[in-house]
């Protein structure tokens, strides 16, 4: 394997990892705060991509792409925020919440997917970011949009980390995630904080959707694949902490890039799944997880 091929594969793995991290972080934020697994996350990615596509149709150029991404993220934040009150909040005190949330999020996913189909039709679409720049990197040409997606993903994750660790709202969210009753006794509006967590998850999913939509074609049901990928990532890294899937995402991205190179497109996913099951059997809480769930 030539060194430039190696670098190319490595960089595409890292870019992939950035996208995966963006997709998976939303899942783990929801899991660590609300104790539920959000099966509508893939649909969030898809809806975010379609909203961005719609805006980019009427706003040309790189600025239009930026605007589309920003509006899509804002829209999805509001969407996720509201959705929480419809599909999670009503039974948040039920002992069956895990199972009930599985079915409501699956149903929400079906609603979103079919809604996309009704509004935008079943034909495939692609967002044009209007970024034709290529960056030469040690003799390897990397597409500008790849680098942009990596940079934005890293910035978004850093921003999220700062928000959760430093801001009052972020700290309150972490408090509510760790001990709901104690947070209520400190006067926090826990339902509001949980809705924000759901909104953040939807917003990061939208950001991932915008970049996926500018890298390949999208159709109403394309969210299933990102959902499965995020699932692998969170299992691999562990869902106990919102940061652990981020490291895992980069490992998965790189492993996937290399296994596609060596084994071909067909076998690469099987390698990932087998790897994940191996991790689970040896360390069920994930590579970077501990059993204590925290935000």
């Amino acid at each position, binding site marked *: 394997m030539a060194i430039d091929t190696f670098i190319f594969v490595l960089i595409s793995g890292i870019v992939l990892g950035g996208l995966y991290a963006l997709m998976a972080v939303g899942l783990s934020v929801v899991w660590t705060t609300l104790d539920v697994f959000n099966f509508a996350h893939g649909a969030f990615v898809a809806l975010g991509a379609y909203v961005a596509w719609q805006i980019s149709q009427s706003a040309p150029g790189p600025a239009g792409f930026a605007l589309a991404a920003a509006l899509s993220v804002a829209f999805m934040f509001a969407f996720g925020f509201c959705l929480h009150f419809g*599909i999670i909040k009503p039974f948040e005190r039920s002992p069956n919440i895990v199972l009930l949330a*599985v*079915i409501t999020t699956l*149903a929400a996913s079906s609603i979103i997917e079919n809604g996309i189909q*009704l509004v935008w039709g079943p034909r495939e679409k692609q967002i044009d970011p209007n970024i034709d720049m290529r960056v030469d990197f040690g003799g390897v040409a990397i597409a500008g949009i790849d680098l942009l997606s990596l940079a934005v993903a890293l910035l978004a994750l850093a921003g999220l980390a700062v928000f959760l660790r430093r801001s009052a709202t972020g700290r309150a969210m972490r408090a509510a995630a760790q001990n709901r009753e104690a947070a209520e006794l400190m006067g926090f509006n826990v339902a509001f904080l949980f809705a924000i967590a759901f909104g953040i998850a939807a917003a990061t999913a939208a950001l991932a959707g915008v970049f996926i939509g500018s890298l390949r074609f999208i159709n109403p049901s394309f969210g299933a694949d990102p959902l*499965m990928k995020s699932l692998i990532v969170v299992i691999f890294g562990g869902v106990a902490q919102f940061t652990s899937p981020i490291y895992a995402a980069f490992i998965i991205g790189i492993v996937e890039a290399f296994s596609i190179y060596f084994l071909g497109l067909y076998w690469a996913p099987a390698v990932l799944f*087998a790897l994940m*099951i191996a991790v689970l059997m040896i360390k069920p*809480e994930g590579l970077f997880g501990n059993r204590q769930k925290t935000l």
Partner: protein
Amino acid sequence: MKYAPPFHRTNGLVPVIIALATLIVLPLIFTDTYVRHILILVFIYAILASNWDLSLGYGGVFNFAHMAFFAIGLYAYGIGAKIIGIDPWLTILLAPLASMAFAALLAAPILRLEGIYVILVTIAASQLLLKIVVSQSDITGGTSGMVLLPRLTIGDYRLTSDGRIGYYYVALLLLAASTVFLYKLERSSVGRAIKALRDNKYYAISRGVSEGATRLYTLCASAVLPGLAGAFYGSYVRVASPDVFGLSFLTITLSILLVGGVSTIWGPIIAAFAITVFAELLGEYGAWRDIIVACVIIGVVVIYPGGLFAGIQELWDALDSRKAALIALWRRRFQAGRRSELMGGPDRMVETSHGRIAVFDNGNSGQALLFIHGNSACKEAFFRQVAAFGDRYRIVAFDLPGHGVSENGNPRTDYNYEAYARVAAEIVEKLSLGTPIVFGWSLGGYVALEYAAAGNPTRALAICGTSPLGTFPDDMPLGYIASPHMELAGKRFFSWYEKRIYAAKTVPAEDAQAQLVRHAVWRTDGRAREQVVARMKTVDWPRQIRLMKEGTVPFAMINGPEDPFINHDYCAGFPYGNIWRGKTQNIAGGGHAPFLAAAAAFNAAFAEFLAEFETLKPATQSELATPD
């Protein structure tokens, strides 16, 4: 001892027979192939969802690879019947082995996992399986699947002939087999271990339930029928495509399970019909159909998380109490003659703080006797005492709330021993009975004890078929002989068989006159049985014990030695302070109700008891006596 009657003696028998008969007749009415096709799909969904309930609902193991069991059955049929060339029927029977093997493999990685992690791993495992299936495109046909699988035939008869009627009945047979399997399994020791692990894992383990083995059984057992159904599905649609691994198939089946109701066998079956038929009715609306179905599912889960079956049960509950009240009303209006003939006089309704109570009062002027009947009986149980003592004494008997021709009460406030004792006290006051001699039978014995222990006027007290309880529930197994009938005493719904057996055991008199008493159980409000037993822990039992030990009220215990419920040694050995004739009295030949079934002997003894205490004006009673 857990009371678990066989299925043909439960209330489920009649609805199941009706449903089964309907399903057998249905294809003869709807000859349309499409309707039969939909029903076949309904049966398959019902099998998938109800078997999933075994792991998800009963076991609490969130296995999301359940659809993979079905897929394995499907592909096993494709490979076995088409590629290897095994007989299609034999392949269908062998397919579950493949799905069970996968289930056994699946049990390993989730052995140490809980909750959400089980969901993640099982989804991953089924996706892994999908990747393997898709990658082996020479055998499985890759993403486009296997086509033209062999169809089922019996001799030269194709099951697709005559509008698929053959497939319809095979599918129905599979559903019936699945239901019998689940019903039996749930009641077996394995089924109880599965539920015990879900409800209290560590306690179950400490009692010797192996978590690993039980999870293995759960998964394997839940894989059998989906494997069978998958193979059958393959022979029916003749295509094996990887779509069955998809999220949409999983979503529909899970919706059926949750909308029907988790941890019920019948819920998913009912929901399979409801959801599939509902979706078919919306058939023309395309994407809107899926949106509407998803909204309805969210609506059901959010508004009524118990699901359809719980809803049906709640409706049934409400109807059952109404039905009992209606029977009471009907008997009050139209059977007054029979009651009056038996008792030698009419009864009347008396307003109490626990509802309107039917009271019989012979209006005589002698010493008052108050009779209190037992669980699921009525005041007419004492008609032989009315006949024997009516000329000398004033005899009053009443139907407890929810019994006889009294009104139903509020289950929260009216169906407990304290309330029953208050009803007795209010009747004594309203009818100006002075200081009555109180006789209580069985449950009525506790009412009589509670009445006297609460300080109500009592000249003397006699109980029959009642074991004194010092503490509850500790003394229950001492005072009573454990038998399924003890469980019946607190059971809300009686099947026809249970009504008959309960009446026969408690009222061992076969003659036509006692028939009215035996029929009382058909009218009794089931909530009265349920609540009075459920609220036994709130009764002040030590106060009753103090009453019996201190002996301030003359007290007699007259039992039947053949009484199948009470522990005679326990009753005889109890340290009574002042029991009539120094010990418990036995009247042979009357079982649980000697005053009814061995009336002559009982009345003779009872007459002596009455004679001894009717004239007594004990000093200890002065503070209890009413002002008159």
